[in-house]
Each structure stands twice: as C-alpha cells, then as structure tokens.
C-alpha cells in the first residue's frame, strides 16, 4: 500500500441502515458450478426430506448461507433454484439440503420422486453473506415450516463447535409430524404448533407470549434476530419482534419465494 491508496467511497443514506452485511463472499466460489453427488436421502416429515451430497471441492460455508442448484434435461433445458444449506460448515466435503415437496415443483418434484443416491446435480455457492451467522453474536432464530432449514445449520454449528454464545430457536409447524428435525432439538428450541399439538400442549400461531420471554432475557450486546419462512410468516414474526422491542436494524429476514 502507498500514500496514493484511496479509501473506498461509501455513501450511507440518511436513514438507519437496514442490516449491514456480515461477511465478504468469495466471488470465485460463487461463480463456479460444481458436481454434487447424492449420497443419502433421509425422510424428515411426510412432505420434506433431507438430501446429502458429496461435493469434494466445497469451499465451506457459514450457517445461514444458501446455494444455487441446477438440473439439466436431455434437451438442454435448465431449472435452477436457491436452497438454504441445512448442514453445519464442518461437514467436510459434504452438504445437506432439506426440501419440501412443492406442489407442481419441477425441481423439488424431481428430488422427491426420481432422485436416488448416485445421482449427480450441479451447485454453486455458498451465496450471500447477509443471512449468515458466524457464531459471533447471540442469535435469536425464528422459523416456520422449511424456514427452519438455514436456522438448523446455525443450531448444528453452535453444537458442533461447543459455542457458549446464547442461541434460541422458536420454530412453528402445523403439527408434530410436520416439524422438520423434531428429533434433533434440545433445550434451545421452543416449538409452536398451529393446527395440532402433542397432548397437553397449546395450539395456535406464534404470538407475543412466545417472543417476549426471549427478549426479556437480553444477552450482553442484545440479540441478532434471524427470521425465515414464507412471506406471510416473516411479516408476522418480524412484527412480533419489533413490537417486543427488537431493533429493526438487528432483524435479518429470509423470505422463501
């Protein structure tokens, strides 16, 4: 570096910045399509399954990041979709995705009805640092349905690394059978059931009463909130957080389109 080195300009608008990015993204990794070989399929719920892939040159990722996946038909037709990564980063050379079987979905439909271990698809990533959680700040995670997928990567990372930074997960599902990763949750997780609950548990949508106790126990420096799910759920959950006093600039939202 010399005296001529110029500071990169940065225009900050006269507003509270929405949410700053968290990490620099490797452009090289994001630009490359790699072959991912399906090694295992695990049923999670009647509508969701986890697909494990070997990706030998996978550059690693941070919990919360996603990738782009592409399928190619005989005639050259290509379908590509963004999927959140479910596995923790330290799963050397392997990644896992958990996919809902979307009505009429050409990509999720192929996975749920055709895919077998040994099949090859293509992926590029990891992508986007915005929803990433490096494990550095207390994390308050709120998800619904398959919105729990990137949040589970965070929970798994927290456990695998034995992190002491506070982490809480509020997860909403229609019924116990539809709760993805039900067998993996521990004391960090509070499930909310909207249509049918286990014996003795209440039924109803996520409410202020679920969020308030978490915001009452503020960790040092406050929570970094991560919300993931359908747009309707994301709107609802983010309003609950704001109403409970969580600053808007510390709420990151990933809406499943």
């Amino acid at each position: 570096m010399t005296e001529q080195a110029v500071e990169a300009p940065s225009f900050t608008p006269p507003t509270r910045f929405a949410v700053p990015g968290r990490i620099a993204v490797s452009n090289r990794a994001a630009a490359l399509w790699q072959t991912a070989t399906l090694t295992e399929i695990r049923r999670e719920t009647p509508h969701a399954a986890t697909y494990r892939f070997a990706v030998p040159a996978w550059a690693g990722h941070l919990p919360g990041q996603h990738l782009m996946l592409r399928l190619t038909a005989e005639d050259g037709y290509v379908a590509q979709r963004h999927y959140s990564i479910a596995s923790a980063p330290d799963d050397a050379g392997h990644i896992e995705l958990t996919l809902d079987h979307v009505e009429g979905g050409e990509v999720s439909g192929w996975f749920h009805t055709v895919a077998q271990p040994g099949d090859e698809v293509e992926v590029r990533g990891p992508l986007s640092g915005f929803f990433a959680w490096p494990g550095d700040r207390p994390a308050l995670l709120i998800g619904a349905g398959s919105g729990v997928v990137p949040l589970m990567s965070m929970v798994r990372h927290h456990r695998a690394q034995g992190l002491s930074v506070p982490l809480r997960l509020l997860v909403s599902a229609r019924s116990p059978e539809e709760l993805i990763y039900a067998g993996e949750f521990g004391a960090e997780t509070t499930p909310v059931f909207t249509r049918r609950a286990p014996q003795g548990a209440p039924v109803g949508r996520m409410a202020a009463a679920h969020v308030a106790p978490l915001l009452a126990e503020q960790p040092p420096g406050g929570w970094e909130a991560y919300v993931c799910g359908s747009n309707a759920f994301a709107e609802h959950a983010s309003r609950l957080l704001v109403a409970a006093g969580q600053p808007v600039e510390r709420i990151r939202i990933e809406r499943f389109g």
Partner: protein
Amino acid sequence: MNVTRGFTGRPRAHNAGLPPGQYDAGDDWPVLSAEVTPELSPAEWTFRVDGLVEEPHTWDWDEAHALPGSVYEGDIHCVTSWSKFGVRFGGVSLDAFLDVVRPHGSATHVVAYSHTGYTTNLPLADVTGGKAWIAWEFDGKPLSPEHGGPARLLVPHLYFWKSAKWIAGLRLLDQDEPGFWEQNGYHARGNPWEEQRYSGD
C-alpha cells in the same frame, strides 16, 4: 452439458421473453425483502435526488404526483430465478425527476436508497432514457407495502433487487459504489439477459 438422470422439467413452450435460467412464476409475485416491511404512509413519503446535480431536490407525495404520469407494461425478472410477465406499473419516469435536478456531466452512476436504509448501485445510463420509473401503482391499485409501497424504484431491464422498494432517494456519483446486495456477493449490474447474478458472472 451435465444431464440430470430422469429430469424432464415442466412442460414448456419456447418463450423468447424468458432470460436464461429463469422460469415463469405465472400469477405468483414472491416477496424477497431482507428487512422488516416499513409502515410508511404516502404523507410521510419523500424522494430526494442529489449528489452530482445542479439543483438537489426533494419531492413529497403530491409534488411527485404532479409530474407527468408514465406506465410500464412488460416483464420483471428476479435473481432467485422467477420472472413475471405482462405486469403493469404506474408512476413517473425517472427522467422527469432528473430533468428538474439537471445531472452534472461528470455523473456516471447512482446509488438508490430506501427509507429502510437499503441501497443498490446502478449506472446512470440504466436509469435514464425511459428505462426507469418511480412507481406507486400495480395493476391500477396502490402498490402494497410488502412490494415497496407507497413507492419503489422500477428498473425492469435489470434483476429486480435493483428496483429498490420504499425508495427514498438517488445520489448521483462519478464512480460505481456497491450497495447492499452488491456488497454481499451479487453482481454490480445485474443484467438478466447476460445472467449477471453474482460477482464474477
């Protein structure tokens, strides 16, 4: 070409309006904001253009609506791979705002920013000459908050993250300066026809 065993894809007619790697979302219009949807009324909304201009100016709702109206009818393309055909937005051409502030000859780029603080960068040439709008209507109705209402930037020939929701202003610069998604690995320009999704594409 790496053909995926047993993948045929959905029935499709060749659609010349579909950029590479996109699919037709039909009647769906997914919402993909990264931040909390702001509660912003038309009475509170303002739009400012400043930076390398002769006369920086801030419009309120009524003053912006007094400018000549302009409609965009066509398609929009989101980087997450959906495209939406035959949409109709109503608002005002960005040219009408720029005519008032008179850009300096040195201006080459803009940073568009939202009332939330979201930012995105664009070459000036991508938002002039009838290619960009400030839009407040969709299908003849007020634009809903989750889609950027009361008013959003509309730059339909680029991926839709460039069309900043809840638009608050544009700053004209003499250099490119990455915005929110651009700092998070997305492409500086985002041209769907060149499939410029991520840095390095």
